[in-house]
């Protein structure tokens, strides 16, 4: 067992600082391919070369390539979780209602065991997000689950759209209104945080423009927060906004209209179904829970039929986890949309593949089985929407990152030399209460 482990460890360790990520070749034979965009193909092969999907067809013959027999199994694109907080060392810089300048990509943790556990659930990409303590939180990072690499830089998904976390509703109100006794304490205040930030950024951009055009000769102050907010107004930084109540969702869309921002993805958006037509009209995306509700008052009037209603009203919808537990069975969470709303197989699976890819701006690279896309693929032993489905192998860029037949118990990359048995963590009742507000114990509670 030990040698197996060392072999696995050595196999994946590359100590270079450069962000050259590993790619692989593999031929997956004779599986049922769920392509998402081109139907379900039975008894079909999939060839990945240099990390990209090269061929899809029957009886592909090729030279000396690693071959995996997928007879009787299902092959689908790697699952994408559009809302996650794993693999980062800092989630919430909860000291100010606007901290647009901080970037969770600065604090990636490639040794987080939850990455491996997500791979064991078929998730190949996650959107590592800042938490929801602030109305304007921080910049996020789309990461690929390249388990085994040591350099945090190699986790980045090169070329992914830059995103930033906004938050509406009870969380920023609790942290700043109740905790810090500063605005926002109400939803009225939350709106003003955005209007202030955007207006100040417009002035900031003008001041620098004047300086660069020679209209003034002393450089204005450099403000890294305003730089970030300016990027939002320029369209270089896409907003993903934690939101629940219908009225606050409408509020933000109106604010964005006033400032010329066109793209937004709402997160959680538990009451999104109440304003589905408005979301569709704006072109806003929605990334929702499968069935979480009633943990806060703002989600008391929500429904597990949310994803179905949004989908049927033309809103591009995904199902996310926001949890290091749910991320491990997103395929099951997507299946719930069949019980709550009767979505078809393809509609349900789109919620965790192509749709989150669109929301993260990476749909040219991942989200479906098409030639030219990244070799991010999962093999299931049964149809992924069955509760009995178990992921067998997960590939990222054509490299095996999870293989159920080569899966020793202790998969940790880094081991604390001061601890023999890792600490036993008691079960947490309602993990989701904590997940988006991680890291705030000092600010919220007088410890």
């Amino acid at each position: 067992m030990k040698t197996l482990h060392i072999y696995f460890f050595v196999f994946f360790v590359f100590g270079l600082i450069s962000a050259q990520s590993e790619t692989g070749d593999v031929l997956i034979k004779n599986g049922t391919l769920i392509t998402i965009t081109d139907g379900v193909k039975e008894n079909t092969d999939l060839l990945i070369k240099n990390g990209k999907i090269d061929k899809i067809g029957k009886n592909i013959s090729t030279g000396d390539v690693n071959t995996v027999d997928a007879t009787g199994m299902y092959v689908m694109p790697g699952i994408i979780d559009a809302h996650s907080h794993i693999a980062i060392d800092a989630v919430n810089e909860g000291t100010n209602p606007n901290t647009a300048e901080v970037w969770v990509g600065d604090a990636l943790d490639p040794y987080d065991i939850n990455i491996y556990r997500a791979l064991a659930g078929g998730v190949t990409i996650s959107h590592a997000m800042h938490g929801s303590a602030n109305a304007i939180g921080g910049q996020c990072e789309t990461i690929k689950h390249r388990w085994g690499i040591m350099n945090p830089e190699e986790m980045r998904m090169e070329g992914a759209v830059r995103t930033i976390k906004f938050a509406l509703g009870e969380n920023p109100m609790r942290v700043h209104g109740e905790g810090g006794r500063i605005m926002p304490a109400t939803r009225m205040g939350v709106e003003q945080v955005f209007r202030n930030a955007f207006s100040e950024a417009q002035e900031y951009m003008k001041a620098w423009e004047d300086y660069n055009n020679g209209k003034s000769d002393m450089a204005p102050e450099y403000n890294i927060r305003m730089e970030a907010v300016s990027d939002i107004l320029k369209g270089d930084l896409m907003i993903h906004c934690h939101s629940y109540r219908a009225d606050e969702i409408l509020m933000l869309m109106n604010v964005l209209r006033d400032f010329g921002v066109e793209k937004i993805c709402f997160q959680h958006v538990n009451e999104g179904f109440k304003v589905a037509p408005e979301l569709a009209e704006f072109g806003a995306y929605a990334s929702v829970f499968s069935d979480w509700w009633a943990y806060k008052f703002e989600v008391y009037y929500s429904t597990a039929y949310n994803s179905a209603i949004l989908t049927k009203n033309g809103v591009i919808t995904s199902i996310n986890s926001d949890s290091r537990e749910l991320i491990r069975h997103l395929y099951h969470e997507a299946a719930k949309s069949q019980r709550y709303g009767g979505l078809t197989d393809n509609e349900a699976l789109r919620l965790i593949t192509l749709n989150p890819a669109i929301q993260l701006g990476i749909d040219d690279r991942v989200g479906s089985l098409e030639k030219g896309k990244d070799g991010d693929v999962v093999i299931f032993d049964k149809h992924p929407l069955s509760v009995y489905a178990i992921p067998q192998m997960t590939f990222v860029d054509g490299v095996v990152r999870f293989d159920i037949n080569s899966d020793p118990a202790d998969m940790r990359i880094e081991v604390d030399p001061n601890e023999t048995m890792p600490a036993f963590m008691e079960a947490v009742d309602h993990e989701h209460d904590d997940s988006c507000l991680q890291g705030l114990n000092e600010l919220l509670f007088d410890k």
Partner: protein
Amino acid sequence: MNKLILIFAILAFVLPSGLYGQQINKAEAGIFLLKGGELELMDDGRIKADLLIQDGLIKEIAENIDHPTAQRIDCSGLIVFPGMIDSGTRLGLGEVGSISLTQDHNEIGTYTPQMQALTAVNPNSVSIPVTRVNGVTSVLTVPSGDRFPGTAAMIDLLGYTPNQMYSGFKGLVFNFPSAGRRGWWDSRSEDEIKKANKKQWDEIKDFWDKAKLYNKIIAGGKKPDYNPQLQAMVPVLNKEMPLLIEVNERKAILSAIKWGSEQEIDYILTGVSEGYLVADSLTKYDVPVITGPVLNNPSRNSDHYDVAYSNAGKMQKAGVRVAIRTNETENVRNLPFNAGFAAAYGMEWKEAFKAVTIIPAQIFGVDDKYGSLERNKIANLFVADGDPFEPKTDIKYLFIRGYNIPLESRHSYLYDEFLEREPGLDGN
């Protein structure tokens, strides 16, 4: 003019149902004949038979039943299942998680065994219909908190008063001192935790000894001073009520088994997430186990990713009586999916289904009335078009205490109202 009156008259009938949307359907009493379906009998397999519900009970199970006045329900192509039992929840004891004044399961005080979960159950909790439409018909609802937080009660998910809902089982909860971290923010050293543990044990021993003395005094005929805490312990000490010991970590489980067996009481272990490591001790002492949620992360970073999924199955295969719980408040409806994952990761399907039906009924000593489709048991059952563990399956009919329950809840009402919203987009 007459045409106008006619139009108005028609509208008067049509409009109200259009404007005021949903009809709230009520639970329906009566005699029901489920014809032509298959019945899930677990150890006795699946048989094609009819089932008659009358007087709140399963009156008859036979090949071809006929009844003059029964309402016939066509179950051809469908399967009838016994209602599922979630053996560990806080259902009815909490409404909105972040609002503490809606949370009734955690009272102040370390030793509060006298707190009765049953009286605090909110029979009108919005979560109850949400739960039962997935086929869960009874739950054990459990107080939480410190050492002895209170007395849990089993309830059926139908009724307008707690007493109407009560199913006839109560258990006293004991949160066994643990050697684990309380959360990812708990940064105490191993020694600090050990020290705190030892102190807790000394206090527990003190309390337990006092309870035993109190019981002895009562047994001897004398009446001690009013002491609700110790009074609540009496049924446990007299083996009239079992102790539900919540314990999860391996060493602590072994200590709990040892302690429980020494005390001459009836006890049930709950939680038991590292139970698969000590299954032989569990079988040796024939300790019944309630474990879950199955959909949970491993408790140690070094554990295999699926230990929580496979725990129940491993224990059951070793001969332990295992029931599965969600330990949830508002999402108890996920019980069938928890059982489904246990079945996926090594537990036989039949055993997983038993773990949410007959086994908890047996553990709670109510299996004469609950847990399976048998004559004269209470009619808690549902009818589905497939495996209830599969999300794709639809539940068609639901019966609790013989009432036909509408398959509606807040979630379905919102779906009905908003799937095609009227008015739609501005200006439409």
